[in-house]
């Protein structure tokens, strides 16, 4: 199913600040600006990849999208509802529609519950979705859908499965209530290379069959390129560039995007001599005290005076870039 034009999830200027304790007891150490003004639209059936280095705020963003974290300001809109204002029945309905798959299949499944219990739980929380007598049938369908043998597995515990199988169980749980959006937070990074491809292929097949939209958060730029229709690049709590997969990867316009892409090792030893690599100096600055103006300027090779004083906005359009001196496309 090709992605349509209908927006399923609209993220408006989302901000999350975490207070930090100061060195002296009972004083404040300021705030960590984990997510600092992120906006995007997610269309039905599409995959939006979000890439960035550790500490850029991508996991905090994921947690806010599914309502696990209360934003400091801004809104996540699903249809006519606002995720963090919804209460009661409306909230429950929302939670059915937006699900999450987490990185670590070892800790995201309760070790004391059988697979049957884990997969029945969504229906116990949302009993009106499916008649009690049809639930076992449905979880067998789900297991089949994610490529696990439904007959064999139901009464076993998570530790009896391999990492790849556990991630499939996590995906089956996320699919149980037929959501419109699944937020995948590093869903394949804990898996072995040979198993990664299985799970990536599974996610792609499920999207084709069910038309679910993904927000696919990862640090692996190769995996994100493979699975995404559009990609957003995050740096220190802000999006610095978003665009369709091809144009973002083939002609990145933000210096950070270009440096990030050039740092990815390519499995092709023949070309390694001629490869142009931009080596960024140092580490990303602390989100407690981000640089003034453009946050990337401290590591940028073309930073000018303007960059220290004026923050470049992320304009609208198909391939916007938040930079005063965007690279030629």
């Amino acid at each position, binding site marked *: 199913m090709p992605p349509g034009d209908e927006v399923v999830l609209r993220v408006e200027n989302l901000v999350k600040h975490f207070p930090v304790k100061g060195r002296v007891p009972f004083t404040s150490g300021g705030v960590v600006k984990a997510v600092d003004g992120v906006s995007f639209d997610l269309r039905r059936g599409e995959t939006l990849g979000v890439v960035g280095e550790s500490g850029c705020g991508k996991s905090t963003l994921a947690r806010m999208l599914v309502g696990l974290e209360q934003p400091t300001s801004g809104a996540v809109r699903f249809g006519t509802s606002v995720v963090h204002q919804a209460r009661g029945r409306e909230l429950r309905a929302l939670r059915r529609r937006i699900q999450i798959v987490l990185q670590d299949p070892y800790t995201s499944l309760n070790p004391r519950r059988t697979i049957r219990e884990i997969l029945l739980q969504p229906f116990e929380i949302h009993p009106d979705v499916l008649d009690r007598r049809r639930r076992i049938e449905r979880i067998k369908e789900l297991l089949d859908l994610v490529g696990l043998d439904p007959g064999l597995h139901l009464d076993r515990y998570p530790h009896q499965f391999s990492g790849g199988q556990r991630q499939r169980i996590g995906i089956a749980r996320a699919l149980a209530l037929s959501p419109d959006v699944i937020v995948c937070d590093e869903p394949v990074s804990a898996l072995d*290379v*040979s198993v990664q491809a299985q799970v990536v*292929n599974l996610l792609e097949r499920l999207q084709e069959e069910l038309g679910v939209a993904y927000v696919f958060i990862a640090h692996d730029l190769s995996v994100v390129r*493979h699975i995404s229709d559009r990609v957003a690049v995050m740096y220190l709590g802000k999006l610095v560039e978003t665009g369709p997969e091809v144009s973002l990867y083939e002609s990145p316009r933000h210096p950070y995007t270009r440096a990030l892409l050039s740092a990815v090792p*390519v499995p092709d030893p023949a070309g390694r001599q001629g490869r142009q690599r931009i*080596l960024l100096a*140092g*580490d990303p600055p602390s989100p407690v005290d981000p640089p003034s103006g453009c946050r990337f300027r401290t590591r940028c090779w073309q930073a000018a005076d303007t960059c220290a004083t004026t923050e470049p906005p992320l304009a609208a359009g198909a391939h916007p870039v938040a930079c005063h001196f965007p690279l030629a496309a």
Partner: protein
Amino acid sequence: MSLLEIADLKVAFPGPTGPVNAVNGVSLRIESGQTLAILGESGSGKSVTAQAVTGILDVPPATVSGSVQLRGRELLTLSRKQRERVSGEEIGMVFQDAMAALNPVFTVGHQIVEVLRVRRGMSRADARRRAVELVDRVRIPAAKDRMRDYPHQFSGGMRQRIMIALAIALEPDLLIADEPTTALDVTVQAQVMELLAEIQRDSGMGLLLITHDLGVVAEVADDVAVMYAGRIVERGTVEQIFAGPAHPYTEGLLNSMPRVDRRDEQLYAIPGAPPNPARLPAGCPFHLRCPRATDECRVVLPPLLALPADRASACHHHEEVLDATRR
């Protein structure tokens, strides 16, 4: 004489149902100035191989057999004391998790100075000067001021550099790096790999790189040994392996990897999961996941056979694989 020569190395650990053979007869060699990558997934035995070489494996409970020679000198038969001296001074080690490898209660300056004083008998002042040089060598800004900092005060990439400084403090002939950049962000990973390559160019040491990352291997290795279920299943130069693998496992790995420089429509996925080393299947350990498996593979374990052009493959059907993968 090679810098490092491993022959028929076997490592086993006691398990609840008998010994678990983590390494099942690994043979390889590294020359000075050369980078050999051992590529493998979790449970393939790549880290245990490295640990057996460095002697940090606890024996017992582990049992180690075979031969590990550094410049012609057998390490496995050395006494514990001699072994510690050799692995301390002639083999440097860099691990994935610098926080676990550095002592959290001493400053990094103290840790480097200590090594130089104990092993080289340097005076405090000389050792301090040399330690600052080393920290500067791994490109830590304001090296002198940072000597008084504790490991937790450094970022992940900086800690990795400190560990590299510590590993090269005694100018080892061989550096063993076990997943040195796996925990790092891609921009920092590029910096650290660049640094390792530069230090190797300058010092001429041999580098044994243990990794699961095909991209890193392609970027830095001269030679590659692919491990699966405790064995080397394929060995060759990095060009040979990436241009035309001779083992279906390597072939599958290369096809299952998405690439940042192009978009493939569908990834090949190797079916199943890596086997449990305690319960290896009969015959070729890869046959359950192999699209080319035949009856022979289910019964006969294929040996690592030398092929033309100084490469090797442990597959009954290596000619078929080579024909299919040669571009």
